[in-house]
């Protein structure tokens, strides 16, 4: 109340209450500030929020096919699988009509979708469509649609196709996420494991995480001494050393990856030297590339600068006097390093670690080239479904899970180290 009284009493020279006038001025400032950041905001929305939103939407969206076969799916839902082996006549009739009078291109898109639920849908519908079109053209609508379809292609009497249809009858579906985790639906829409011979995703997820963690650790082990050297050598030498770090960084990724193939292959440089030194026999050459080992080695080298550079920038500003002071006060060099120097490098280690991990988890081209039989990461499957099968739903689900994993790691990191502790320079 007091507030109210005092403001109503205070007026500016032109008779407007002060509070109102201040608000007005402030609003102007706020608007100006907003307009200043607006292009950036727009940029972020267009290039970041919208694509990710679109991806998350696609990972559950199944509306296209529901727009093509609305009646069929409605009738399908009425099918009592306990009672009848095959769906009732109404389902066959609705399907016949929707195939006969539907738009060709929309049906074509739906076919691609249907084939994800079971291999063989595509040609089944295509061959049937041809027969249906013929019958409609001749104006010979069948009396019994079920018989007509089954005589057109006997697969219409195969209940497994009809069971697979159950995956698609709703506008939104979690099936892509289940597929991304090696699971699928059985005939009653219960989630079950995928056929054993096709289980690859969980294995690939684990491998992706494993390799990303290993690469991060190896980068830290290899990068720490280098960064320390860079930060503590006289400028003359450290500049030269910096060139050695940056030169590969500036070299094309493909060139470095190919160079690793030359180094690591069985008749390559490393095996050659080991055989020449007598460490390996000629028949016992190591398989260092076209497998997980190759991926690990090549990725570690390629991502190393991302660890060294943040570490270096943090180490450079740690005063040398700290170590001397610690030793002056009686600490052994190891203790001084462990208790005084190392804690001060944590911001650099975490920045480098997070950077390397994030890059590694989504890495594509290097594992693709050196990964061979078992060194490919989840990015391979995202690219495969994006380009080859056009299963963008599964792609989006894989991407969303990848995003989720990243967020979990970020959260863990924030809990353990604290995000304020990150420092790039």
């Amino acid at each position, binding site marked *: 109340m007091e507030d109210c009284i005092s403001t109503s009493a205070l007026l500016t020279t032109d008779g407007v209450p002060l509070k109102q006038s201040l608000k007005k001025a402030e609003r102007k400032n706020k608007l100006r500030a907003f307009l200043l950041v607006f292009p950036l905001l727009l940029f972020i929305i267009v290039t970041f929020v919208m694509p990710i939103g679109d991806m998350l939407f696609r990972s559950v969206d199944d509306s296209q096919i529901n727009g093509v076969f609305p009646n069929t799916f409605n009738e399908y839902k009425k099918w009592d699988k306990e009672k009848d082996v095959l769906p009732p006549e109404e389902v066959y009739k609705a399907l016949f009509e929707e195939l006969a009078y539907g738009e060709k291109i929309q049906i074509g898109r739906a076919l691609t979708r249907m084939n994800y639920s079971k*291999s063989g849908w595509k040609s089944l519908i295509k061959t049937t469509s041809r027969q249906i079109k013929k019958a409609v053209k001749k104006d010979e609508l069948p009396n019994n649609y079920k018989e007509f379809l089954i005589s057109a292609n006997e697969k219409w009497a195969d209940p497994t196709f009809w069971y697979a249809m159950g995956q698609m009858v709703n506008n939104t579906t979690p099936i892509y996420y289940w597929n991304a985790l090696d699971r699928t639906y059985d005939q009653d829409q219960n989630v079950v494991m995928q056929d054993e011979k096709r289980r690859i995703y969980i*294995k690939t997820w684990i491998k992706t995480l494993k390799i990303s963690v290993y690469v991060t650790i190896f980068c830290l082990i290899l990068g720490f001494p280098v960064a320390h050297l860079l930060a503590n050598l006289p400028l003359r030498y450290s500049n030269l050393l910096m060139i050695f770090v940056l030169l590969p960084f500036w070299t094309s990724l493909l060139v470095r990856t190919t160079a690793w193939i030359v180094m690591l292959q069985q008749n390559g440089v490393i095996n050659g030297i080991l055989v020449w030194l007598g460490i390996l026999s000629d028949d016992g050459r190591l398989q260092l590339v076209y497998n997980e080992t190759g991926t690990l080695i090549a990725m570690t080298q390629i991502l190393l600068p991302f660890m060294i550079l943040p570490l270096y920038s943090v180490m450079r500003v740690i005063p040398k006097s700290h170590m001397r002071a610690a030793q002056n006060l009686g600490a052994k060099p190891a203790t001084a390093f462990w208790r005084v120097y190392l804690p001060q490098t944590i911001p650099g280690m975490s920045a480098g670690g997070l950077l390397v991990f994030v890059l590694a988890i989504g890495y594509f081209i290097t594992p693709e080239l050196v990964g*061979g039989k078992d060194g490919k990461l989840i990015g391979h499957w995202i690219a495969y479904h994006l380009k080859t099968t056009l299963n963008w739903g599964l792609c989006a689900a894989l991407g969303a899970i990848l995003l989720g994993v990243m967020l979990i790691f970020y959260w863990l990191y924030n809990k353990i180290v604290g995000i304020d502790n990150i420092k790039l320079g």
Partner: protein
Amino acid sequence: MSKFLKAFLFVSLVFAPFAASAVTVASWGGAYTESQQKAYADTYSDPGSIVFENYNGGLGEVRAQVESGNVTWDLVDVLPSDAITGCDEGLFEDISSEIASMGVPGPDGESIAEDMEANGLNYHSGWDCCVPQIFWTYVVFYDPDAFPGEKPDSMADFFDVEKFPGKRGIHTWADGIIQKALVADGVEPNAVPTVFANQTGAIDRAFEVMDKIKDHVVFWSAGSQPLELVKSGEVVMAVAYNGRVGAANLAEGENFEYIWEGQVLDQEYLCLTTGSPNREAALDFMMHASSPESQAEQAKYITYGPMRASGIPIIEANEPWGPGGVDIMPHMPNTPERLKVSIVNDPQWWSDNGAEISERYSAWMGN
């Protein structure tokens, strides 16, 4: 009329001829695109109007362009399964009537479709939107120096590591090798697609055959790798694209031997993107690129076979057709006697089953 509108009209009139004249063709790059440039674009009435752009296959980008309405590729060079899917989904425009009316006929008046049928192909919906390009194959090759005694000459030999010890180079995807595996198991090459389509358990059977060499395999993922693998002695035999092997033999002086038995012949198409900004010019170029003469011309620069049967006689009549006076026919995959021992890939079956087999193949590789 406002000033702005006038200015706009002026600018668009000035620039329209430039904008309309460049037909962008997305293709696979490397020696293949170079051969297209020489055989199709350089022989075209207006060579400067054709621009090639590299891509990595698949329909991902095409779908993104068509869905967003921002089409920049007029023509796309695709595999047959992508031709089928793209045509079914409307990513490529149905130009069946244009192909029939504008297609360049063969010497005896054969239409494009008749020419392809004469080469042993059957109609699929990709033919509605696309014109044929070349036959390429997955062929096994080896360096004869690696086998001082008896040389391998069949698929059974490729899958027999006791008779011919040493590693094998195969690709990290399924389609070529699993069909070859059935040939090694005694199936007639020509019958392989029908066996896969009609016999339950055929896929299991192929995987069992592949198990025999699994511990002796190096997997490659880029077309140049098998050549490197064989040259460096990393493997003794490898599956490769025949064009790469042909180039090594013809241009790099290698002496690789082919095992034609069980080669997997696959098709290649040029398709018109729906909403292409230069539709008419693109159509005209498509017809030029699919003429028997252009197809034969391409064999000069890369050893892939013309998909139109009437292209072959042109090469045969004019041998030596290759660069520097070499005969090209010994490197062509689709001669009549080689077709007898070939598997002709069934793109429809693969577009049905490809994803499932690919997952299974990956599980097999990783185990």
